[in-house]
């Protein structure tokens, strides 16, 4: 099964009436058994890309293609979407505290999702919830299912969230900054869990701002900048030999944990373009140290094999 494209997004664009152009050509592919890291700074459109896959993006003009296992998502009716969400692709969010309904117990919230999508009886669904929670590494799952979200620690809440997402055996799990609200020691636990899920249960699309997280838990990566995917490829290759100047600069800006301490951290001058004033050519050109006259035209993805970047410097 591995290797076959599960989700392919190509040239996805989203224009919002007030906010302007939010996505401006997002192309990426999630293959079965893959953990794709979607990485970018705030405002780069990484969360929107995740939401668009479930049809939850804010109102606006959406164009491009979204294919999931051969089906065209852009043609989905609201009924199709309801059957798709949570059943075939599920999503977990940054803050598990607010993502759960605060006034209902954890168990019934997961049961609800199971019963929306399957014909399982209430009792069977409940048993399934307990076994799911156990599989996610939640200690004493039966008691935990009876708890309210605020009674759990951040790590347990996120595990419960993942259990809910996996409750209907989806083929794709979209994780939107799943560890940002958590402590570092707990972050490692959740990343380990996601890695296991990616290897065994579902393909994962891990949306994050942290290159370190991508490096440790993803197989592939797509780098987003200002609503455009500027580089994709296997994690090892992209991190070892980044092609795009933005990816290079981003990696350099991370303070090192070993070796000598640099006098100054390398920085990227300037700020990302706002959604209403966007450059016509390469979106990174205004900040790029290696800008050439060719950058005035938006470069397509170039490169050999799986590792490709949208930059004129790539042979």
């Amino acid at each position, binding site marked *: 099964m591995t290797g076959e494209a599960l989700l392919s997004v190509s040239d996805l664009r989203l224009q919002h009436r007030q906010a302007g152009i939010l996505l401006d050509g997002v192309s990426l592919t999630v293959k079965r058994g893959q953990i794709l890291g979607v990485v970018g700074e705030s405002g780069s459109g990484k969360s929107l890309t995740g939401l668009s896959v479930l049809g939850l993006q804010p109102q606006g003009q959406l164009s491009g293609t979204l294919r999931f296992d051969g089906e065209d998502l852009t043609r989905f009716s609201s009924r199709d979407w309801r059957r798709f969400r949570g059943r075939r692709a599920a999503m977990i969010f940054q803050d598990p505290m607010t993502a*759960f*309904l605060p006034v209902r117990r954890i168990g019934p919230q997961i049961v609800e999702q199971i019963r929306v999508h399957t014909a399982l009886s209430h009792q069977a669904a409940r048993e399934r919830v307990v076994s799911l929670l156990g599989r996610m590494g939640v200690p004493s799952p039966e008691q935990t299912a009876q708890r309210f979200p605020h009674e759990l620690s951040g790590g347990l809440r996120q595990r419960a969230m993942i259990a809910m997402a996996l409750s209907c055996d989806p083929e794709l799990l979209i994780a939107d900054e799943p560890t940002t609200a958590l402590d570092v020691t707990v972050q490692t636990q959740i990343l380990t869990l996601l890695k296991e899920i990616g290897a065994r249960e579902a393909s994962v699309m891990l949306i994050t701002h942290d290159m370190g997280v991508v490096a440790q838990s993803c197989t592939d990566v797509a780098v987003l900048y200002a609503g455009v995917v500027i580089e994709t490829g296997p994690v090892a290759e992209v991190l070892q030999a980044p092609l795009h100047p933005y990816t290079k600069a981003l990696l350099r800006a991370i303070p090192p944990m070993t070796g000598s301490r640099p006098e100054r951290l390398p920085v990227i001058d300037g700020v990302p373009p706002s959604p209403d004033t966007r450059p016509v050519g390469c979106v990174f050109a205004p900040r790029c140290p290696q800008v050439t006259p060719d950058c005035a035209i938006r470069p397509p993805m170039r490169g050999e094999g799986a590792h490709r970047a949208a930059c004129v410097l790539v042979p």
Partner: protein
Amino acid sequence: MKGVASRLGQMVLVLFGISVLVFAVFFATPGSDPSVRIAGRGASPEVIERVRHAYGFDRPLPMRYLTMMDHLFISRNLTSYVNHGQNVVSEVFAAAPVTLSLVLWAALFWVAGALVFGLIGAAFQGEWIDRLVSLLALIGLSIPVFWLGEMVNLVSESRFHDSWLFSWVPPLGYVPFMTSPLGWAKALILPAMTLAVAFIGLYSRVLRTDLLTAMQDDALRTARAKGVGPWRLWFCHALRLSGLSALSLFGLDFAQLLGGGALLIEVVFALPGVGHLTYQGLSTLDLPLIMATVLYAAFFVVIANALIDGLYRLLDPRMGRGSHDG
């Protein structure tokens, strides 16, 4: 358990505060002497002095307060100043069922109306139907309730009484449930609807805003991502999340009405409820009667507050984890 005890203590404290407040308003307002009022305008100083002695107004205030509380709550034999020998406490208890019936009917209308209008407004946000509902709610909120009562009387009792629409309307007044359940309902439907109009306006607006806020909530985004359908989304998620603030508002208003807030409606529709009783007391300056009704009102408000608080804790598990602010 400790929480319940402290809650009870607070209730007693509030009730005590209210009784002192009401007592002070009637007997210790600076510059206003109750004996002058009872003796009437232009009474001679001797008469005023006699009144003062007869009613015990020459005794110190705390003593008078204690005596009145004793008559009200312990011996329960407080008698009217105007109609001597009439027991005020039993009068209040006789009037209570009328008010209770009226307010229950009104609550029925206003909860139903607010739900319908609020949900319509939120579901069709920004469309013409939402604007229409908002305008109607605003108008409902702006009508003085006693005037609306007059107009309803005018239409249903006089101008269109003979039409098919209002021919069933009985003459003004109250019919006890035990006498005739149908007559009871007939007598109360129009007053209750009149009373409910302003509340429908208020609550549908509150509910609409809360629903729209809830729909923006992260938890609702999760629900959509789960594949929950629109009906479940509105009723099981949004309403569950947003109904809480409307609920606490409801408890307070319900209790206020029960405690005599429906006075104007009772006067206009000639219903002999607690509000009407207070009105009588006011027009004859029957201070013990007013004292009794106001305290009865406050009692209901305090009890209802406590009940709503408990219900809130039950429905929102986040409450009740200590007094941690935030």
